[in-house]
């Protein structure tokens, strides 16, 4: 960082040239971060840019020795072995998925692992007294005996902060703290973070909601593809949303996307007024009255932030495999179709490649050939009896056409690299001979070379006259592969524009605001 050695305010944290590698992927390369005492420091970047990894390095989730570079905290180089060590030093991280135990009370959660005790016996009177005090500091008026499962997400977030305060926090890390909150709860939380700043507690905040960052952050560090791009001072540099977006999107797109070949045909698949309710929370609609179309030979992109409802929309269409179906209609070639369960969806020519290939896409105990035929087993099993030779030949054909790198198709899928596993999943769904292939984050966690190959496969599928829906968090990928892009924000489709007219800036705007401007 080119900041001067002696800044005006004392520095509480300096991360110097942090590099973190995973097998085959460099998640962080020479990332630096400087946080002044008592400031709110925002970290911005696209999904997968390395923000969360950086915070895990800082909080000891990735212990000292698994990364390169130095962490200087309060003037000393620190080497955290685990989270316990970093918390002892006053660095507390609040994850996007809250780490509270639903069946325990607020008090029990605040003091979990940190109970006030004497001779090993918990002093509940003391605990409750302190809990009431902590709750007052975060502005939560609930009874401290209330079970966590009985309070909303907004209040749970406050309990997490109370828990952090109890640990004598000096540097609070918040990972997407408002992602699951409504407007009012978000505002309350932001005010609380500002209040903590008033008491000298510094915060690092990861957020996609740029208006919030603009509102409360003092400085912003932008990370892209595992590199630090720049650090901005909000007031001095006059930062606004457009400035942040420019930093996040940055460089010109490289030529790593295939040519768009093939003709785009007629609209053949339509979703009308699709409404889906959250599986657990009644009256919370995760997909709200969404309608869209897909043409033959067309790759339709879906852009949206995490939790915007992209996956929920896709999975609910694919045999109602997510949430509670409320209403909506599907049409294929002008005829109404029903996909009330997965096998009906498959029979109607739908296919869905999940974003989580290890948990939802593959049985990791299977070998490649078993996996390839898994979604339409009866194609090679006349009379319920599997034809092993046919199975082998099918798998072998896909191995060649998709260039799956493996000695034989008898190899277990758990031995393949991420990119090759993804090709196996693609083969599995191509084998069902779909008309519409829904790809949810098809290039997540795989390296650049394999990504390019996957893009080629996607365009090939489209060129065969099939429809493809591409859900992705990577805007360059959406812009480079899609023909047309929908944006989705909080369960509502907010924009629909040809890829040729879309820019990262316009997409990000529609992904982060509810202003509806659909021009069908």
């Amino acid at each position, binding site marked *: 960082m080119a900041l001067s050695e002696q800044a005006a305010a004392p520095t509480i944290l300096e991360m110097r040239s942090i590099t973190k590698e995973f097998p085959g992927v460099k998640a962080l390369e020479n990332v630096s971060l400087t946080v002044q005492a008592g400031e709110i420091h925002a970290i911005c970047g696209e999904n997968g840019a390395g923000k969360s990894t950086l915070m895990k390095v800082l909080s000891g989730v990735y212990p000292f020795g698994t990364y390169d570079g130095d962490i200087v905290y309060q003037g000393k180089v620190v080497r955290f072995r685990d989270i316990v060590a970093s918390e002892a030093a006053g660095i507390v991280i609040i994850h996007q998925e809250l780490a509270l135990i639903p069946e325990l009370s607020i008090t029990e959660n605040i003091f979990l692992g940190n109970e006030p005790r004497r001779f090993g016996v918990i002093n509940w009177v003391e605990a409750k007294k302190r809990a009431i005090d902590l709750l007052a500091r975060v502005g939560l008026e609930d009874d401290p005996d209330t079970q966590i499962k009985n309070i909303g997400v907004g209040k749970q977030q406050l309990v997490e902060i109370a828990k952090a305060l109890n640990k004598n926090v000096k540097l609070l890390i918040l990972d997407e703290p408002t992602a699951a909150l409504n407007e009012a709860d978000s505002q309350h939380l932001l005010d609380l973070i500002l209040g903590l700043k008033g008491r000298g507690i510094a915060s690092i905040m990861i957020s996609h909601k740029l208006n919030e960052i603009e509102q409360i952050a003092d400085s912003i560090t932008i990370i892209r593809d595992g590199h630090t791009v720049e650090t901005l001072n909000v007031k001095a540099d006059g930062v606004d949303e457009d400035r942040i977006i420019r930093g996040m999107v940055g460089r010109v797109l490289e030529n790593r996307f295939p040519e768009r070949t093939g003709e785009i045909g007629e609209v053949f698949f339509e979703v009308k007024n699709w409404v889906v309710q959250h599986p657990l929370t009644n009256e919370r609609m995760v997909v709200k009255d969404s309608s869209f179309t897909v043409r033959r030979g067309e790759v339709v992109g879906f852009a949206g932030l995490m939790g915007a409802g992209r996956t929920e929309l896709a999975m609910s269409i694919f045999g109602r495999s997510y949430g509670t179906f409320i209403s909506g209609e599907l049409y294929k070639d002008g005829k109404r179709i029903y996909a009330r369960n997965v096998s009906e969806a498959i029979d109607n020519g739908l296919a869905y490649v999940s974003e989580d290939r290890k948990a939802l896409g593959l049985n990791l105990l299977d070998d490649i050939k078993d996996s390839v035929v898994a979604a339409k087993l009866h194609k090679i099993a006349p009379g319920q009896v599997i034809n092993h030779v046919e199975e082998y030949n099918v798998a072998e054909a896909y191995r060649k056409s998709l260039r799956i790198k493996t000695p034989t198709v008898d190899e277990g899928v*758990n031995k393949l690299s991420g990119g090759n596993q993804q090709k196996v999943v693609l083969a599995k769904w191509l084998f069902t001979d779909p008309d519409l292939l829904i790809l949810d984050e098809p290039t997540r966690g795989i390296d650049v070379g394999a990504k390019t190959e996957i893009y080629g496969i996607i365009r090939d599928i489209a060129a065969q006259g099939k429809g493809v829906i591409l859900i992705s968090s990577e805007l360059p990928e959406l812009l480079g592969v899609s023909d047309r892009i929908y944006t989705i924000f909080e369960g509502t489709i907010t924009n629909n524009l040809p890829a040729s007219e879309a820019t990262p800036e316009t997409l990000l705007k529609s992904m982060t605001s509810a202003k509806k401007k659909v021009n069908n």
Partner: protein
Amino acid sequence: MSAPDTAKPAFRFRDLSKMFGGGQSSGRQVGILGALVVIVILFQILTDGLTLDPTNLINLVNQNAYVLILAIGMVMVIIAGHIDLSVGSVAAFVGIVVATSMVSWNFPPIVAMLLGLVIGAIIGAWQGFWVAYVGVPAFIVTLAGMLIFRGANQFFGNSNTVTVPDGFTFIGNGFIPDFGPAFGYSNGTLILGLLVIIALVWQEIRQRRTQSLMGAESAPVWVSVTKVVLLVLVAGGATYLFATGRLGTSYPVSGIILGVLVLLYSFITRNTTFGRHVYAVGGNWHAAELSGVKIKRINFLVMMNMSILASVAGMVGVARAGASGPGDGTGWELDAIAAVFIGGAAVAGGIGTITGSIIGGLVIAVLNNGLQLLGVSNDKVQIIKGLVLLVAVGIDVYSKRQGKPSLIGFLTRKRPGSSDDAPTSGSAPLDRPSVEPTGAPAESSSRPSSITPNV
């Protein structure tokens, strides 16, 4: 079937693992098969040849047929990610009803057997309903079933013992009837043995032909030849022993029932869509569901099938004992479960084979039998059996944690630098902490924690 490449070394230890079965659990099966052979030889020496005496072998089959029948159903239940604790009680309940139907209601044995199967199917549908469609964990459903059907057995039979007629004991005590010219051997057994040997050879040839059709690399010819020769020797030896027993004895009928069931269910698990779906549900039910597998139906059928096989085991058991009593089948479920786990099934589901479980069951059976022949008291036998189970599964878990398929897998692992090394474990997802040097076994992180794939 090309001739083995002469450039290759003539003997690769790894080829041995190709000798028996394939798939990811084959190493384990070879290991447990080896253990069985060692135990048999050991006891053969310690008992001065009593172990492989015809009379003892017949006892061995008759005494253990019902547990092995249960193991067939149990391994499928365990592959699907469940457990069934009720099989002993179900067997006992079916047994008392069948016995009563013959004694009090004068049902002919064959009708009584059909009745038994129907009752087994009804009980299985009941338990399958709770597991698959209500979503109660199988552990709970079958724990309840264990109590319910034990009680039902005693209620139905007034806690009395009912003696079954001779016509029925045939399936538990009977032998292949003798016929044809007498020259000191049981002709029926000889013919059966011959059929088995032909089947073994044919199976191996067929397998090699399939592999060459696939263009896959077959194991070297010497492996196949050795395998067939070994199997034929074992089958021939067993045939000889069974055929030369005491006059009037031959291969037991319960053994034939077992053999037919093993063949049938091996085919089902290996070659049918249903079998494939059972593995899919146990391996990753999320992925199975998203692939269009009707997981509720699979769970229902697996549980139902278990109870049907429990009814078969119950009837065989009653036929062997000559009577049905209130204490029948006690502890059978645990014997069957132990057999399955010794045979290489995974506690978390997705892994296991019928043959492995049968071999596992035979290990326990031979151990039991040999120790009894040596005059070891029952308390010590139980301790030894417990330790064997623990050590067998312990070795499996340990070797999996090391990233090796098994002890055999460790011995036969590919050396680093060999040309066909597959990339290991792939790219780790960015958001998952993986500080272990090689990463935990992938399957443990991907498997859903719940044991009941329904909500």
